[in-house]
């Protein structure tokens, strides 16, 4: 095997870029394995939510393959379960996935300017917290084949895990389903708690979000709305308050992984 563990200047001399592509793809694939394993566990929990919303295993597989978004899919499912309007689904997807807009902004600086549109579309398709994290952590400009390698393992795990969650949700004992149901929330906590520790304002607003989310289930008018609609209202209101009272300094946005 001539898989170049050390690839030096001779790679640049070689006119065929193929061996380097394959090497970079493999690197991405290896880095994607732990991410894929994590996705398998979490998407299984998403599958349980999808089953409750009435999706078939194939529909769950398709949703996860096309969306690649934990919070976005979960929020969408709460609305699907409530038979919400299509425009509400679009709105909640926009809100819960807004962070990917920021990540893509950061990622756009990581591409060399001559990166083709096709590469940009393909890498952009699977910008997630974790895949963004490993792409941004690579030194130098991003080779799209690195991302393709990671996507090649992570995306199928995410989609298959969701389908398995829907199938096995029926077969597994209630105890196990109950335990696995919190995997998704564990993932959310893993995303929100480290920045809450680093930034007091984020921390305070996370606590305020918990409190107002709980309060809104008890309040007269808000409690009659579906979970998804409440999420939209509370997110927009609290984010606007935070942005008005505590506008961020420019450099804060870079810290978004």
């Amino acid at each position: 095997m001539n898989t170049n563990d050390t690839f030096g200047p001779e790679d640049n001399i070689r006119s065929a870029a193929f061996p380097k592509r394959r090497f970079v793809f493999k690197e991405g694939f290896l880095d994607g394995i732990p991410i894929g394993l994590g996705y398998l566990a979490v998407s299984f929990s998403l599958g349980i939510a999808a089953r409750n919303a009435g999706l078939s295993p194939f529909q769950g597989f398709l949703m996860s393959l096309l969306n690649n978004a934990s919070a976005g899919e979960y929020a969408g499912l709460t609305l699907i379960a409530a038979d919400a309007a299509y425009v509400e689904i679009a709105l909640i997807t926009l809100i819960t996935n807004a962070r990917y807009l920021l990540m893509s902004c950061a990622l756009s600086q990581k591409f060399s300017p001559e990166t083709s549109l096709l590469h940009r579309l393909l890498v952009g398709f699977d910008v997630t917290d974790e895949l963004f994290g490993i792409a941004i952590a690579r030194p130098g400009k991003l080779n799209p084949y690195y991302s393709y390698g990671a996507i090649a393992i992570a995306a199928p795990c995410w989609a298959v895990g969701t389908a398995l969650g829907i199938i096995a949700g029926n077969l597994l004992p209630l105890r196990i389903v109950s335990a696995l149901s919190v995997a998704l929330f564990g993932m959310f906590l893993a995303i929100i708690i480290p920045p809450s520790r680093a930034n007091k304002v984020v921390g305070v607003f996370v606590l305020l979000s918990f409190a107002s989310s709980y309060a809104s289930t008890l309040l007269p008018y808000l409690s009659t709305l579906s979970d998804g609609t409440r999420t939209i209202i509370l997110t927009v209101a609290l984010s606007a308050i935070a942005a008005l009272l505590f506008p961020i300094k420019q450099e804060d946005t870079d810290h978004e992984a």
Partner: protein
Amino acid sequence: MKHNIYIYIAIMAAVSFIIRVLPLTLIRKQIKSPFLQSFLYYMPYITLAVMTFPAILYATQSPIAGAVALGVGIISAWFGASLFQVSVSCCAIVLLLELILI
């Protein structure tokens, strides 16, 4: 169910895709408005927090197990556990507690 699930999925997929590829393709300028920048900065954390609580209490058979899983998740994430470790810790504590509680 009045609405078609495949249309739901298509809308979600289209919105997710557009959000992700716009900054990589068409929008090459930085967002200038400090309000919009700040709004987009806080929004992800707030929406995930809103969705986590109190929903985690109703995800498990016993709300107590859900509450403890929330605590375990916060503490382990606070001390730097990875996404996978946080998720598994939450699941494990629910499994253990419900063996006792139920």
